[in-house]
């Protein structure tokens, strides 16, 4: 007989809203007539994610463990859930854009048709839209929100799969450049499965060593300062699984290929939300389960952070495709985020948690905005992502170029943008914990990375436009909203970050 665990429905409301919306979406997909599906699906997904955002804000201050100890609803979980729900809602808006692609959607009508077949060519131009992406993305958002609240390794694994499987699928749904998109999906799936296997193996080892999958029990059973080979090996494999999701070098290899191949709204979604979820889980795993053994993993995270920053910044230099460039930027930013992770003492003291959460929010907003701009610049073959095609964009489309410039400056961490505030916060937290050599490396890497961000700006403003260059589409309401929100937030969090930083500081608590 299985006992029903105690469930605090109030604390679970955000999760229930999103997952409920996803299930409802599946039903709509099955039963609603085709011509009304798109608006209904978009509405359901937006209500689900928007409702979840409101619910997390209403729950602010909650601090409890529920669902039989499997879920922790604490400040950090709620802040990250709110971030994921908000960024998720913005991503859904990007998915719903219908005025940019001549065929009215960035997604293929039928993903199962072999790429390059006559039927496939026919489908490229058909104005039919496909609406399965909405419930899939909503499931992924639900998984991410569960991921950051998981207080139990098994729940964490389930959440990992719930967020990953839909992502594998929707990565392969680009309407144009089908082969590239399918290749991306398969690569992501294979490597993701590989990483999940690591995570699962690590889970088994940890269970073997401690007899529990509950984070608090692991902390209680764990050795102070290490010693237990089984437990340490388990930790290593768990960390590998999570670092893969966070695209930290050397587990980043999938990132450029998948970012490039996936439909751009999906890339935006992955870059913004997956990063938040993965870092939420990393923080919880390291500090709640292994906080007492911090000197076991601290050197490792230190080294991985350096590798990630250097690899991301250096490899970004020679990229000629904007999506790949932003992918390497994401790798470098993962390294910066890890410096924030190190800005926390083993007992949870220090400002590292608040700083990292704030950084996740700013990075998510900025990168989402940057990818949204990418969807605007198009040529006959879809989005024009090659660097050379952006030459002289400032003269032909000043507003687009200005908005992109803002996002690029924020990614480079130039003052008066959100990127600077975020970087400043994590670097300060790291220095407070004595990790100043890491911060020095981070600053050097920032300087190198600034080159490839600024190169785009230079290209846009100081180069002659190419003769048959791309056109800049006039975005519909959804993309306009996304651009307005992300650009405003990027500026506002750079100039007046006080309120949000304070919120992050108040929320920086783990229960357990």
């Amino acid at each position: 007989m299985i006992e029903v665990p105690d469930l605090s429905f109030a604390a679970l409301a955000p999760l229930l809203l999103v997952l409920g919306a996803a299930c409802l979406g599946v039903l709509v997909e099955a039963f609603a007539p085709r011509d009304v599906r798109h608006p209904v699906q978009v509405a359901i997904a937006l209500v689900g994610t928007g409702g979840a955002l409101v619910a997390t804000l209403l729950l602010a201050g909650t601090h409890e463990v529920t669902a039989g100890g499997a879920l922790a609803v604490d400040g950090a979980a709620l802040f990250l859930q709110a971030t994921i729900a908000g960024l998720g809602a913005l991503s859904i808006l990007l998915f719903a854009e219908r005025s940019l692609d001549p065929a009215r959607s960035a997604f293929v009508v039928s993903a199962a048709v072999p790429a390059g077949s006559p039927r496939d060519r026919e489908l490229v131009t058909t104005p039919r839209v496909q609406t399965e992406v909405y419930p899939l993305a909503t499931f992924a958002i639900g998984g991410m929100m569960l991921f950051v609240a998981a207080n139990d390794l098994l729940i964490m694994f389930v959440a990992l799969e719930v967020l990953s499987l839909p992502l594998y699928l929707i990565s392969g749904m680009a309407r144009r450049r089908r082969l590239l998109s399918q290749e991306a999906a398969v690569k992501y799936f294979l490597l993701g499965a590989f990483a999940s296997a690591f995570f699962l193996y690590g889970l088994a080892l940890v269970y073997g060593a401690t007899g529990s999958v509950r984070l608090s029990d692991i902390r209680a059973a764990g050795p102070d300062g290490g010693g237990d080979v089984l437990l340490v090996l388990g930790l290593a494999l768990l960390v590998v699984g999570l670092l893969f999701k966070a695209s930290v070098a050397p587990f980043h290899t999938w990132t450029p290929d998948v970012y490039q191949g996936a439909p751009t709204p999906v890339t935006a979604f992955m870059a913004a939300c997956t990063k938040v979820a993965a870092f939420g889980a990393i923080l919880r795993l390291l500090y709640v389960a292994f906080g007492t053994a911090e000197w076991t993993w601290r050197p490792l995270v230190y080294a991985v952070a350096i590798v990630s920053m250097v690899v991301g910044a250096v490899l970004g230099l020679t990229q000629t495709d904007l999506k790949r460039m932003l992918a390497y930027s994401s790798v470098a930013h993962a390294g910066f985020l890890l410096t924030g992770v190190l800005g926390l003492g083993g007992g949870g003291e220090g400002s590292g948690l608040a700083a990292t959460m704030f950084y996740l929010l700013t990075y998510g907003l900025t990168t989402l905005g940057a990818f949204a701009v990418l969807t605007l610049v198009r040529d006959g073959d879809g989005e024009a992502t090659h660097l050379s095609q952006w030459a002289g964009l400032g003269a032909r489309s000043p507003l687009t170029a200005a908005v992109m410039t803002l996002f690029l400056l924020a990614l480079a961490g130039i003052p008066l943008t959100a990127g600077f505030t975020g970087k400043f916060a994590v670097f300060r937290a790291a220095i407070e914990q004595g990790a100043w050599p890491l911060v020095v490396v981070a600053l050097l890497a920032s300087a190198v990375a600034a080159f490839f961000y600024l190169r785009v700006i230079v290209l846009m403003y100081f180069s002659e436009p190419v003769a048959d260059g791309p056109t800049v589409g006039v975005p519909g309401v959804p993309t306009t909203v996304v651009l307005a929100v992300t650009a405003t937030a990027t500026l506002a969090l750079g100039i007046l970050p006080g309120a949000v930083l304070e919120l992050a500081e108040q929320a920086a608590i783990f229960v357990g």
Partner: protein
Amino acid sequence: MGTVPAEGLLAASWLLIALPLAGAAVLLLGGRRTDRWGHLLGTATVVAAFVLAVACTVQLAGTDGRSADVELFTFISAGDLDVTAGLLYDPLSAVFALLITGVGSLIHVYSIGYMAHDPARRRFFAYLNLFVAAMLLLVLGNSYVALYVGWEGVGLASYLLIAFWYTRPAAATAAKKAFIMNRVGDVGLAIAIFIMFAQLGTTSYAGVHGTVGTLAGGTITAIGLLLLLGACGKSGQFPLQAWLPDAMEGPTPVSALIHAATMVTAGVYLIARSAPIYDLTPTARAVVLAVGALTLLVGAIAGCAYDDIKKVLAYSTVSQIGYMFLAVGLGPAGYVAGLAHLLAHGFFKAGLFLGAGSVMHAMDDSVDMRRFGGLWRKLPVTFATFGLGYLALIGFPFLSGYFTKDAIIEAALDRDDVWGWVLGGVAVLGAGLTAFYMTRLMLMTFFGRARWEDGLHPHESPTVMTAPMVVLAVGSVFSGALLVSVVPLSGWLEPVFGEPEEAAHVVAPALVGLVVTVVMLLGVLAAWLFVGRREVPVTAPVRVSPVTRAARNALYADAVNESLFMRPGQWLTRALVWFDNRGVDGAVNGLAAGLGGSSSRLGRAQTGFVRTYALGMLGGAVMVAGALLAVTAG
């Protein structure tokens, strides 16, 4: 009696600056929409500022101590440095505020006519408004930092306006020259302010002047000399005078307002305002005297040789400001005389420039006096107003220049030592030269045979241009007598410079007046003998005496500047460029190449094959596990 917090209208004196600034902002940001009425708005803001300045001054006259402090906001707060932005409305700044807004209003009105057909009229008025705002900040600020902000602001406005017709290479070059030579002076001013902050911890007038006595003598002298360097740059004094005549490339109203009446007198204001500093350093004061006397002669000599009407007036300005420097260099005895001359000069020189503009307007923008002649019949109003300005400038008895220049000469003689006689002699000689070159200008422009280019039909300017000229001419006639005897400036400025002391005159003032008048008449006579009696050749004669040649080259000031500053500067630049290219760029490019190379090499790991990626992940995982185990074991 100290400074009191401002009340009533005085508390609103920041509007003086805000009004023209708002005008400039509207005109610059409003774009073409403001083309039709922009010039009227620009003029209205300055006229409003003038009305306000008059009202403020009237209120100030009734205030105890006649000094009002207007606190605005904290401007810079960094560490120990705390600069409060505030205004100081005292008799000295009031005089300048009235001059700037008064003459400024007239010149705005004049420009409505002068710039009527210029396509960029709106931009012109915007810059002019910007200038007025910056100049008012310069004279109204209550600290050296506020003055510096205004100082740079007028420098910018001057640059923009000299290069207003920036498609002419000459205008663009002149603007650059003015800007760069001003920069030399500005560095001096900036360093002086740094020293004040470093040594005294404050930059406000009250703070600096109150505590400057605690400094070592050498430091005070250094501050005084650095301030003087700044003043020389802005006021076109030796050795930084060469930019001012070139600045005449700007539209004539600009020459009248900025390069004659107001901005170029900022140096005099700076030295007068810093009187408590100079009172403590005879050395710096002596240098001020020397600069003034030298410039006075250099300007007057160069003025004798030029054929360009605006350049003659420009050198005349250089020379007259030399008089003012000479006066303020004399110390307490000379401040009032110098400022009186400054005000009177503001009237007659602005009037002369506007007159010159009117002549150019009639002569199709020609400035070559050799192609003028006989214009008095065609331009009667211009001739009359210009003539009055001319008489005032040369110090014709009982016109303004007579009173104010004589006061300076008397103050110099009153020193009662050898230097007093030398300086007085220089000033008298200068008066003679002034009479010579101005008479030459009058004769070549208005009298003699008409030597106009074919097809020219000179005509009088519209009323909107002549009216300001008339007003200024009236000012030129009466301002001197007004300032010296009717409403003595010395009484008004007493709260700033102290009680005017009754000097024991070495030479009776009446005798001085007589001598100066005689010398002046000799100058006029000489001019008539050299110029008026003969036919003026249409092209300048080539075979001339070495003196004339030197004067035509402005006593080789440009050549000196070139060999002393420009050439070494160019060598230094070349050396730095070489170092930058070879050393700095080499290192940077090498680093970039290294990073790019490693990027390509690392990039080869990104094969696109899942098997490679998976292997990489496996390797990473092994390393992670190994590292953790190593840490645990160790």
